[in-house]
């Protein structure tokens, strides 16, 4: 679900928003972002804890090296994604949301914060692809 929502927002919702005019874009974001702020952190933690349990039950955590490098790689991917989410994406989300609630939102500030999404989208995309590769490897060894 985590990957699915990321890809859906990135490839479906994102381009649609990009084609809306500014007032419509702001109206959409004002309603969309509070829900994402609640859903995404909950989904991330549920995914991590259930993934850990699944790996433990399947015995993936105790495989010897060199296969164990795949497990280590999954820790690194999760760590990078968590850092990006909490350090870049979430603060920008909250800042944009608070700015949009003002009578006269600062368009320059919103634009600058939204650009961070574009900068981090590439890293997040690479991490999503890495996740899919690791999951496929773990499922087929």
């Amino acid at each position, binding site marked *: 679900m985590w990957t699915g929502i990321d890809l859906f927002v990135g490839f479906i919702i994102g381009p649609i928003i990009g084609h809306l005019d500014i007032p419509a874009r702001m109206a959409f974001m004002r309603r969309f972002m509070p829900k994402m702020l609640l859903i995404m*952190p909950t989904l991330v*933690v549920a995914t*991590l*804890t259930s993934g*850990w*349990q699944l790996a*433990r039950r399947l015995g993936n*955590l*105790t495989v010897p090296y060199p296969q*164990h490098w795949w*497990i*280590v790689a999954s*820790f*690194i991917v999760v*760590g990078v994604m*968590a*850092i990006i989410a*909490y*350090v870049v994406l*979430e*603060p*920008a989300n*909250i*800042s944009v949301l*608070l*700015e949009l609630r*003002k*009578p*006269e939102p*600062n368009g*320059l*500030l919103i634009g*600058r*914060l939204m650009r961070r999404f574009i900068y981090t989208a590439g890293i997040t995309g690479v991490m999503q692809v890495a996740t899919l590769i690791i999951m496929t490897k773990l499922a087929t060894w």
Partner: protein
Amino acid sequence: MSAPAGYTGDTTRSPIIALAVGAIVTAFVSVGYIAAYMPRNASLAVPIALLAASAVMSLGAIVLLTRLRSFAWRLFFNVARWVLALTFVFAAMAEYVFAYDNTRGTPLVILTIVLILAAVNIPVVLGFSVARHERVAS
């Protein structure tokens, strides 16, 4: 307080963010180090050293934060308190998973400290990152 036209927020590099993020990263790396050795028991010297560094950086971030004068404290606490509540719920969930996995002794203590450090630093990062864009009268 509405920002004047042309103001694009405070996006300068901040030592508070650097220290808080550094604290989160070193705490995560300490857990990753232990997990990388599973099922064998890892030496605890490296994770403990990383946790000590993380604690020092956390303290540094909080000290620098308290020394800020012209800062939107109200907005900071508005954001940080809810994020703190959220991260403590998540930390409790993770602690339950570790306990359920029969993690005991020193590894459990290390994991608990990591969760506490993350639960403290994440609200600092989010609260500061949001409040720094707000202009307040000196």
